[in-house]
């Protein structure tokens, strides 16, 4: 339908990634993580976050080599026609399974909590009708809707501790990190599978122009997702306790049911779910558009409208036949996803990295090296930049790379704190409290620095565009 190139900005990419990583995980993941990690389930996002940052770096490395191409096209360029098709087929299959999992969970949640007398098939059919409409347009439309929804979604999670302040019981997370390393590791493993959904964003690389902007957006999206999931998990454990959460099918639903603002403002869960469900809907739509992009890349098609409807019906039918019961969908989503990552994604990423390194070496001829040298800023240019620096906002005085290392350092410190806490937390209760506090501070710090990274690149891009405009005018 849209022949004009689709363009997304850094904020849209970050919000998209955050919704993809958090929205689906809220329903089935909480129960599984708390069952595995018990009261330390809120430390479940640290390793997946580090993995997310690593994969973001890897994706941007590929994008730098093949600018203007998405992950499917890059795979084709790197591994050739048939090899690329095989790799893309694996990615598309994984994305298909993600959709099946999410639609199954969403439809079951709706039919068991909100629409009790509506058949599941009808819920899926109605959902697919709307999703097909979005698939026939472009990711730009979905991103704009997400732009409207995301602030509400973010606030609905961030304000949960405040809304549930009368139900918070901090003793429910004690002793912090007092059960050793195994429960934390198990909880992190479960979270890993959900962070493997990052592959979905691969379909939308070509919507952003600058690789550094893409890197900053992906990094902020990953850290924001980790922060929101950690906060949600912490509130669930503090309000409901680990044993109750482990037994409930949808602990988040029960959690928001606990919100009672005075005697007359009851049933707040309907309000909260009117924000969370559209977010989940947007997540599935993004994934469906990614699936469509994969099929388009496999068949050399450029128009979304060709396959949109047919793929929608295919996904609807496969969702209906894929699981006998919702517990199967839960088991698949929580335990199967990480297996996909370990046995399919990891070897493919390693292969793509090797191929990219090989092609990069081949590409980097002497003339290019000379060109690189000539691109070094002239001393007078340097002086001009230095004088311009004084008028810039405070965060611009530090380079993007420095901010990036701050984020990495804070997250590594958080991982170290968890490790140290699990080693000594069972002996001294105060070590657990210090570890938990430090972990929270590191996470907040990483969220701040990753946001500044994004602002920093935005500022640089704006400045470069201004200079280019001025140059064009003088020319």
């Amino acid at each position, binding site marked *: 339908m849209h022949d004009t190139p689709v363009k997304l900005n850094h904020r849209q990419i970050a919000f998209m990634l955050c919704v993809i990583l958090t929205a689906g995980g809220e329903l089935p993941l909480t129960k599984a993580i708390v069952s595995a990690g018990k009261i330390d389930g809120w430390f479940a996002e640290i390793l997946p976050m580090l993995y997310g940052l690593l994969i973001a770096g890897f994706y941007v490395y590929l994008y730098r080599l093949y600018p203007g191409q998405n992950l499917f096209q890059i795979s084709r360029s790197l591994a050739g026609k048939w090899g690329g098709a095989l790799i893309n087929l694996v990615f598309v299959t994984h994305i298909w399974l993600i959709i099946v999992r999410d639609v199954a969970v969403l439809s079951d949640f709706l039919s068991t909590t909100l629409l009790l007398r509506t058949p599941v098939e009808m819920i899926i059919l109605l959902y697919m009708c709307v999703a097909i409409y979005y698939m026939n347009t472009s990711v730009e439309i979905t991103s704009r809707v997400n732009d409207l929804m995301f602030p509400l979604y973010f606030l609905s999670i961030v304000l949960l501790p405040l809304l549930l302040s009368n139900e918070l019981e901090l003793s429910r997370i004690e002793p912090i990190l007092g059960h050793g390393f195994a429960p934390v590791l198990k909880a992190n493993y479960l979270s890993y599978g959900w962070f493997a959904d990052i592959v979905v964003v691969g379909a939308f690389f070509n919507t952003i122009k600058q690789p550094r902007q893409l890197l900053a957006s992906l990094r902020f999206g990953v850290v924001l997702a980790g922060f929101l999931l950690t906060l949600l998990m912490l509130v669930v454990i503090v309000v409901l306790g680990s044993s109750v959460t482990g037994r409930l099918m949808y602990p988040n639903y029960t959690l928001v049911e606990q919100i009672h603002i005075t005697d007359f403002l009851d049933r707040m869960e309907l309000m909260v779910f009117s924000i969370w469900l559209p977010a989940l809907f947007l997540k599935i739509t993004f994934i469906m558009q990614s699936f469509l992009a994969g099929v388009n890349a496999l068949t050399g098609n450029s128009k979304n409208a060709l396959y949109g409807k047919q793929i929608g019906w295919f996904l609807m039918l496969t969702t209906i036949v*894929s699981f006998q019961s919702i517990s199967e969908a839960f088991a698949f989503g929580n335990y*199967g996803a990480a297996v996909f990552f370990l046995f399919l994604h990891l070897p493919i990423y390693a292969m793509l990295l090797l191929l990219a390194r090989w092609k990069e070496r081949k590409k980097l001829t002497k003339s290019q090296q000379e060109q690189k040298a000539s691109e070094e800023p002239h001393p007078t240019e340097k002086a001009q930049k230095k004088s311009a620096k004084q008028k810039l906002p405070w965060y611009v005085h530090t380079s993007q790379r420095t901010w990036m290392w701050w984020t990495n350092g804070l997250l590594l410190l958080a991982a170290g704190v968890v490790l140290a806490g699990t080693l000594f937390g069972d002996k001294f209760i105060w070590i657990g409290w210090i570890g938990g506090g430090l972990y929270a501070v590191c996470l907040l710090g990483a969220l701040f620095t990753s946001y500044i990274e994004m602002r920093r690149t935005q500022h640089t891009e704006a400045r470069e565009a201004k200079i280019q405009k001025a140059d064009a005018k003088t020319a």
Partner: protein
Amino acid sequence: MSHVFSVLFVIAMLYTLIVDQKRINQATTLQKGTYYGFGLLSLFFFIMQLIGTELPMPTKFVVYYVVPLVNAIGHFY
């Protein structure tokens, strides 16, 4: 699977085929194959579900064979 759903699905498939006819005529052979392939697969899944035959979906393979393995490793650990 309810009868209403079955009727709606058949109407949706027919509507899709009619609406997409113009685009399909302009598509390449591979694209036509993919388009009809998805349609036939949907129809196949629909008929199997209507008959009540359980299909060996990849999700079931993961649930029945991989998940117990992961759980066993977890318990062992």
